[in-house]
């Protein structure tokens, strides 16, 4: 009857949350934006070749978002939660996001080319793009109580 919840994600995300306002406050500078800044000089051309988001298949992306586990941390509408940031609709260019997912930071697990193809990532980001931006809090009475 004893189950250990000494969970990596749980404890480390707390630690991150304490140290980095970014982990808590989801509208500050994104992890992906930061990592893409660091690498932009070397990888810009590669990524331009490999990812063409205009051809993303939204329906397939929606399915993959669940089956590849993105929803577990980012929520079914990419709203974020428990330490993972909001990614729907994506606030960062799809090319940068794709490069980030391949070689991520923090508690985001890597999705290498061996397990997810560029096309599949295009599909996922195409789906995320279809998620409408949320309303302003001021327009929701339940958030003003």
């Amino acid at each position, binding site marked *: *009857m*004893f*189950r*250990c*919840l*000494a*969970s*990596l*994600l*749980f*404890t*480390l995300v*707390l*630690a*991150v949350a*304490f*140290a*980095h*306002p*970014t*982990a*808590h*406050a*989801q*509208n500050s500078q994104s992890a992906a934006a930061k990592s893409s800044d660091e690498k932009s000089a070397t990888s810009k051309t590669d990524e331009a070749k490999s990812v063409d988001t205009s051809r993303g298949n939204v329906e397939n992306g929606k399915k993959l978002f669940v*089956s*590849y*586990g993105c*929803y*577990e*941390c980012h*929520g*079914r*509408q*990419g*709203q*974020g*939660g*428990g330490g993972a940031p*909001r990614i*729907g609709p994506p606030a960062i260019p799809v090319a940068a996001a794709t490069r980030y997912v391949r070689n991520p*930071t*923090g*508690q985001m*697990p*890597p*999705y*290498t080319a*061996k*397990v*997810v193809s560029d096309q599949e990532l295009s599909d996922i980001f195409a789906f995320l793009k279809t998620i409408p931006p*949320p*309303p*302003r*809090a001021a327009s*929701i009475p*339940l*958030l*003003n*109580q």
Partner: protein
Amino acid sequence: MKKQKNSVNRREFLKGAAGTVAAASTVAASLVTNPTPAAATPAMHANASAPTLAKVSPTEAVSIESITVDRPGSDFMVDCLKSLNFEYLCANPGNSFRSLHESLINYGGNKAPEFITCCHEESAVAMGHGYAKIEGKPLMVCVHGTVGLQHASMAIYDAFCDRVPVYVILGNFPDAAMRFGQVDWTHSAQDPAAMIRDFVKWDDQPVSLQHFAESSIRAYKIATTPPMMPVALVAGHELQEDPIADGANLSVPKLTMSSPPAGDSSAVDEAARMLVAAENPVLVTDRVARTPEGLARMIELAELLQAPVVDRNGRMNFPTRHALNHTERAGAAVGSADLVMGLELTDFWSAVHSVRGIRNPVVQSAVKPGTKFISVTSNDLYLKSNYQDFQRYQPVDLAIAADAQATLPSLIESVKQQMNDDRRRAFADRGAKHASAHQQTMQMQREAATAAWDASPISTARLSAELWAQIKNEDWSLVSNCQFVSRWPLRLWDFSKHYHYIGGEGGYGVGYGAPASVGAALANKKHGRLTVSIQNDGDLMFAPGVLWTAAHHRIPLLIIMHNNRAYHQELMQVQIMANEHNRGITRASIGSVLTDPAIDYAKLAQGMAVHSEGPISDPNDLGPAIKRAIEIVKNGEPALVDVLTQPR
């Protein structure tokens, strides 16, 4: 205590013969003349009353005096336990403490303590855990020293890590010569408390009633002196069941509660000097407020210094909407501090470090170079070695080994004395900045809550907002851990009273949530508070029988299921592993999800006569369902609303 001759008769009478005098005398006789047959015949099976009756000769008939007991030792145990003013006893019945059980309900009148029937020992202890955090004092739990304690042990560990007192009595059959069947033997241990000794503060196995008296009072005192922790006391079978010897000179010692350890005055003055001198002190709290007084003193200290508070929420330490509550911008607050004071902060290290990455985590200091640290914690006074809940060693500039709540009054006094007008002005200036940062942060929380607002399954932000709308005008008490719903209640609601929040498991042992909520609701009952829990589905499945306990004892509790149909924490962990191992990233759900079939929590609750609704997946249906459930709870009963939710 010396064995009384007649107790052999009594034991076998009850045990072997399902209540027949004849069987008792038969077994007793064989014990005296030839022990072998008695040992070979399992006492439990000796219930063929008619043939046995036939065998009894008139000379073997026993006197009524020898088979009844006017005043068993367990009555005196009740005298001792009553002197401790326990309101409740939570237990699953067990024969190793049957005499104590009977004494409590008959001799003790089933009042103070009143017996609360539990369906699992883990539930009994966790109820005590939740109860103590609301009521500020322990309740009593009885378990078999063997099988019952094995069930209870995880809950005892959680309470230990959470520094919460639970008073556990272990039944045992210490005298091997007085064990008369397989069950007695399997329910006996040389040293029952051995298996929990690493995570209780103290235990004892009294060998006489007077010994029991002294140890029962001592155990209470030890458990309730900070750092508070569970204690265990063995109640031996013979000690309970044998009659109190004629002329026994027994007395119940008086309980004198120890004052909690407060900080040494020179160390407290030095802490105050450092706080007053600092340009940007930050107070990080975890388990400070043991009582409402602790919360009030935390507010006083923070306001005096105009210092932001980062609350790690082990208790309700600081109001969420206070301008100095900077929990939701913890990184920024700690990152700009020149002094961090940790108050009953279990994990100081992680409050001042950042850990990034999974495979090769990069550890960095989260504070500016030169930032000073002060710690005030009673954890410095007590540590066990085996279980590693003491966390990473964090060097500090000043360590005060004392209970933080008890130290706050003298610290506040010293700060007042050392403040001058210049510092007062500086504090006021920084206070204005902190207030505006707090406002901005709160606004960010509200904006973040809008994402997936209309989603189905329902977002945890929406669930929290809907729930808040229904309870905010009540005298409410949220008794579940907020971590699993992305801390939304703490980010959105107005927590201001001591009983508004009680933190979490302590040891992150799953299975705590449901019973601790019922225990907290039991404590809140007499205060007429509306107790609310956001109940994780996986947690409830550990021991759902506690719903029956709530129904049976009319414990009012509003249970809102956070039903994400998974052991979601583990699902994420396995996902991380699959990704890291570069394979099978679609298979992480194997072993971690609770689907196929989906569990119908409303039906589960109905089966135990708990009002229920759901599963609710449309966010627009949620508010009305919660409203209906609250009506039931206000009538003094538990109610459950099953809500299909987003993962976190």
